[in-house]
């Protein structure tokens, strides 16, 4: 699953210069302005979760714990968690849609809390328990939130569904008997363009108190 290929996290500024062996850090050191940073280049690759000293802008070795499994990869510090998950680790369940903390399609759990993977750097997520849509079922047995999505026909095109399921799971993990209003509050960071909200709310409401997959 892990390809471990360092890739650029975004299109702009991507690395023609970098491919020629240029990095901003070595450039700065070369002209003598990096006094505070000199020496850190040595530890860039081996630093892992210990970033007391600056790392980057070149790819840095990190370890992400996703659905209970550790993945080693190299990312530039600017790479978001959604890009690392989708582009480098093949976790394509979380969707990249608005890419600006608005729509919720990229929702994953970080240490048990729902979070937008588009507005979290991958490097920040080290040492935290990352849970994605891929990790919530047990083999063929769906998580109750997923099961009730099916029963209530809570999706149309389905593109927002993984994010909604994760946000819904966050609600039922915390509260086994939420009111419908609490369900609405918990889902307020997710948007469905097809307008399947009625089914989504009902699915999460019914899944509460039904345990895990």
């Amino acid at each position, binding site marked *: 699953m892990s390809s471990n290929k360092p890739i650029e*996290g*975004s299109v*702009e*500024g991507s690395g023609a210069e970098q491919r020629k062996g240029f990095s*901003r*850090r070595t450039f700065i050191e070369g002209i003598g302005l990096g*006094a*505070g*940073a000199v020496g850190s280049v040595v530890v860039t690759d081996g630093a892992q979760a210990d*970033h*007391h*000293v*600056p*790392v*980057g*802008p070149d790819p*840095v070795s990190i370890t992400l714990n996703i659905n209970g499994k550790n993945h080693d990869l190299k990312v*530039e*510090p*600017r790479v*978001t968690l959604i890009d690392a998950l989708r582009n480098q680790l093949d976790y394509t369940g979380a969707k990249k849609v608005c*890419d*600006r*903390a*608005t729509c*919720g399609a990229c*929702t994953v759990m*970080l240490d048990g*809390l*729902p*979070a*937008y993977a*588009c*507005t*979290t*750097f991958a*490097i*920040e997520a080290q040492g935290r328990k990352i849970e994605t849509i891929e990790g919530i079922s047990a083999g063929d047995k769906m998580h109750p939130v997923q099961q009730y999505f099916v029963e209530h026909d809570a999706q149309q095109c389905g593109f927002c569904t993984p994010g909604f399921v994760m*946000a819904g799971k*966050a609600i039922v993990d915390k509260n086994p008997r939420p009111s419908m209003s609490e369900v609405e*509050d*918990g*889902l*307020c*960071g*997710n948007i469905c363009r097809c307008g399947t909200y009625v089914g989504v709310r009902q699915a999460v409401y019914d899944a509460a108190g039904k345990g895990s997959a």
Partner: protein
Amino acid sequence: MHWVDYQRPESLDAALQAFAANAGNAKALAGGTDLLVQMRAGRCASGVLVDIKNIPELNEMSYSPEQGLTLGAAVPCYRIYGDKTVSAAYPALIDAVSIIGGTQIQGRASVGGNLCNAAPSADVVPVLIALGVVCKVTSAGGTREIAAEDFCVAPGKNALAAGELLVSLHFPPPALQSGARYIRFIPRNEMDIAVAGAGVSVTLADGRFSAARVALASVAPTPLFAREAGEALVGRPVHAASIAKAAAAAKAAAKPIDDMRGTAAYRRNLCAVLTRRALEDAVARAGGKL
């Protein structure tokens, strides 16, 4: 997104050294809910991100009835409304932190970040001003305090000098018979930016207002301390007529603009309505009757 360096200091001293070493080029990263969006839009050119979430002082949340609340700048919203003691002591703070973004934002976004981002519409800032919060700011050169109403100086600009870091916010202990409230107007139910907002605090004594502060969101280049609106209440009876005067003063203090969220005239009217409603609720929270 442009190239950045990343650093995660474990102590305040190490963070201050990082800011000093990258004069003007370092940006503090807490929840990142504003910062990442701004970086992606090309509106933040900083070359070094200093992740401040592992610094103990910035994660502090301690309350006592004598000392009040010390809130570390990086404490995320969910920790604040998840704390029963803090929620009971500062319900107006909870009003604001529970409506910033949605669930996913509240898990990451901090009050300190909302303040430093210095948006005119920042929901938490009117509450900080109304409650008389003092901001503790530190740099390699020393520590100073900034009143919440002086912290935002222009849209997106705060009072921090290069190398300075917001460490914590100090909330005075709630006075006897005091109450506070924040309300905003948005056309949606959630996940929106205030067309206007009002944060107020009142203290009552013998059927009169003994102290009051009013602050407004989204009606000036910065969150606005409407000093006159609070002063209009002090010494007056706890009565709808007093509140009407304060609401009129808040409306007069507002300096809104026309934009896609609402016209200036509409916002001025909202200031009067929101101030009145917030004051009515604050009086009720203070145990008073109108």
